């Protein structure tokens, strides 16, 4: 198996892992981390799958860079809102999970 494909498989595994964490955890910080793990999984798949047996492909790498910025922005936004929520309610979970 080419190491590009190895990336893809790792990505798939990370996605599964991230999804599991995202669902099973209630603490918002953990869910956010799980989301980031899943995101990394996606990016690995994107690059790995595209480059398997075709040599380097700049397009998915560029896409992943964009994707990372978007993911960073989303995470930051989530953190900002989460902090405000935490300061107002003193809770680290969503009401229905408490």
């Amino acid at each position, binding site marked *: 198996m080419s190491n590009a494909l190895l990336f893809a498989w790792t990505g798939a595994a990370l996605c599964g892992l991230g*999804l599991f964490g995202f669902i099973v955890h209630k603490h918002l910080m953990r869910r956010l981390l799980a989301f980031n793990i899943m995101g990394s999984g996606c990016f690995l798949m994107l690059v790995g799958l595209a480059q398997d047996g075709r040599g380097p492909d700049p397009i998915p790498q560029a896409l992943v860079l964009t994707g990372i910025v978007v993911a960073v922005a989303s995470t930051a936004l989530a953190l900002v809102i989460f902090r405000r929520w935490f300061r107002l309610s003193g809770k680290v979970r969503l009401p229905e999970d408490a």
Partner: protein
Amino acid sequence: MNPRTVCAAVMCGMLVGLLGLAITMRPEAVITLPERVAAELSRSGVSHPVTAVLLNFRSLDTLLEIGVLLLAVVVAYALRETQADPADRMGLDNRLLHAVIAWLFPLMLLVAGYLLWAGATRPGGAFQAGALLAAAGVLLRLAGIRPSDFAHTLGARAVLVFGLAVFLAVGLGAMAVGGHFLEYPPAWASPFIFGVELALMLSIGFALFSLFELAPPHPVSNKGARERSET
């Protein structure tokens, strides 16, 4: 075993299964895109394919991506105004930290500049450089050197939108000289791209830093502390 875990396990299993199936049974199609990129690279104004894709071939994605980042900061601003911030726990007055920063800070600026410059030819570029700038800012902030109330001034907002504005201006300029939006004339491509990247670096750096600055850690209520300890 509670249902939530079961559900999570099932979903996770399904997802991995599906992905595995998809990976293994992938059809073999003829791929031409990388060659196209390589072929057009010379006309893109930079020699590094990834940068070419990011800032020329698919520059619209990058434009919108900056918008996403800016958006996060806007929300942070909005929420900050709904709650006034008490004095936060940052700014520990630590000699060692100060000393380190004295060494590190200029170095970081230098590296940021280099990364930006390198972007044209090898891995690097505006985002990496901006991230480094932001890190430098965070260091200062941790050391208690805070840019007074800069966050609320027009200047701060101007720096934030600077990258996006320049990007838009360049795109419109391209239209003014008769091209499509963001279509750089090949002769001008590299200076345009560099200018855009420079502006983006500043804005990205400041945006990331403001996100840190605008939601600072605070001494939490006991209630919150208790909950945090139990999870």
